[in-house]
């Protein structure tokens, strides 16, 4: 069942065309990652999907009554606004104590409820954002660069957590990432974006596509070699990864 679909959307900021002719379809239950270089319109695409940006042409179709859970890349809380993590979970709607505690646990931030949001580390803050997003029982969870600042082990752990959340809620997950390595091993589908959709498909298909190599082949040679290695040898029990220079 299609939850949300973008059909040929264009987005302009003044004279600059950030997105052109982007079409995308998200089905229930899948984990889709959008990858692309800096300035390729990844965050803008996500913001179009949540309705924060209005595409200059094309359209966005949503399943009736679709509930979105959004985890922004950054959230600046003004220093004049005191708010505990627990109170933050009550936005936009109050939630019972037990549910709040369970959501923090599931997002990997147990026991942080009493702390001020301003006192949380980057990783803790991100997990509280995730906890808030899943409290709304979303049909579609959208995350903008959620693994930024996490090391590779942290990133893999985060993807495992997302998969568990997806399994429990039966939702779809759409995320933006530049961490190519983990993306390739943890997503059901990868969309490679650079203003337009360059290529799209399962990780194996995408990493073999010429457009993908053109985009990532030079700068991230080490990382690319790494997942080529993984995809070529998926049945291997033990992986002896080469040390990747671009990590």
């Amino acid at each position, binding site marked *: 069942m299609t939850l949300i679909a973008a059909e040929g959307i264009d987005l302009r900021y003044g004279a600059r065309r950030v997105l052109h002719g982007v079409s995308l379809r998200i089905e229930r239950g899948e984990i889709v990652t959008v990858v692309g270089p800096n300035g390729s319109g990844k965050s803008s695409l996500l913001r179009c999907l949540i309705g924060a940006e209005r595409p200059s042409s094309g359209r966005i179709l949503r399943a009736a009554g679709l509930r979105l859970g959004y985890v922004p890349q950054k959230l600046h809380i003004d220093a*004049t606004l005191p708010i505990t993590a627990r109170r933050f979970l009550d936005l936009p709607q109050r939630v019972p104590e037990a549910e709040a505690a369970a959501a923090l646990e599931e997002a990997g931030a147990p026991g942080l409820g009493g702390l001020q949001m301003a006192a949380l580390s980057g990783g803790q803050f991100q997990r509280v954002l995730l906890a808030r997003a899943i409290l709304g029982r979303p049909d579609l969870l959208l995350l903008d660069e959620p693994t930024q600042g996490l090391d590779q082990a942290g990133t893999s752990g985060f993807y495992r957590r997302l998969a568990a959340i997806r399994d429990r809620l039966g939702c779809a997950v759409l995320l933006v990432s530049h961490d190519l390595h983990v993306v390739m091993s943890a997503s059901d589908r990868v969309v490679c974006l650079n203003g337009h959709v360059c290529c799209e498909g399962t990780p194996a298909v995408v990493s073999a596509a010429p457009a993908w190599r053109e985009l990532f082949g030079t700068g991230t040679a080490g990382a690319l070699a790494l997942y080529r290695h993984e995809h070529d040898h998926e049945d291997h029990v033990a992986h002896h990864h080469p040390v990747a220079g671009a990590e």
Partner: protein
Amino acid sequence: MILDAFLWRAGLAGLGVALAAALLGCFVVWRRMAYFGDATAHAAILGVALSLAGGVLPPLGILVVAGLMAVLITVLAERGLGTDTILGVLAHGALGVGLFAAAVLPGPRVNLESWLFGDVLTVTWRDLGLIWAGTAVVGLVLWRHWGMLLTATLSPDLARAAGMDPRRATLLLSLLLAALVAVGIQVVGALLVTALLVIPAASARGLARTPEGMAGIAAGIGALSAVGGLGLAILADAGVGPSTVTAAALLFAIVTATTRLRGR
């Protein structure tokens, strides 16, 4: 000591305005709208001049002109034009135009001092009713839409994703600001309304752990400033508006100093 009726009215008027201003002021501080408050309040002078020339009750004229100013700023801000510079132009331009209009428009002579600095001792029972009606409206609207306003203040994108329109929050707060100016101008005057918005909220920041806590403490500090200010005005034989703001500033200094000392 038996207080005269006019003192009771002055005290109650100050209390009503201070409470509404303190609650609304939290959003003004969180959203960095202090200049916005100034522009809206200064536009009130033009509202006064126009109402007196047109034979309308001043609060009505103020509400309309300040409301138009608030909407204008909201629209400009949404187009990315709500910079400090443009707000500065609007805030001081509105004051200049208002003073100019007060001088040249026909109608009864405008007593500028009472509109600029407030004249709470002349508040009638009808004025008092109007002030508390305004306070009730501000309080009720904030209470009713608190979750939406807070979400949109923290992040317009989170509000969007939850199916809310953050522009509604901005517009609602602007209109409440205009309503507060319309009822508050008689108490503290157009030049000092922003002080009642900002100072109690700023004082409450260091004492609160949640947004609601901050709003509650700000309301308490606002109420204390209103009562203390009236006392100060009687003692020192000074204007009530300036005395109220002086009391608020003193409270801010005391709270900030003690929380800093305890924090270090």
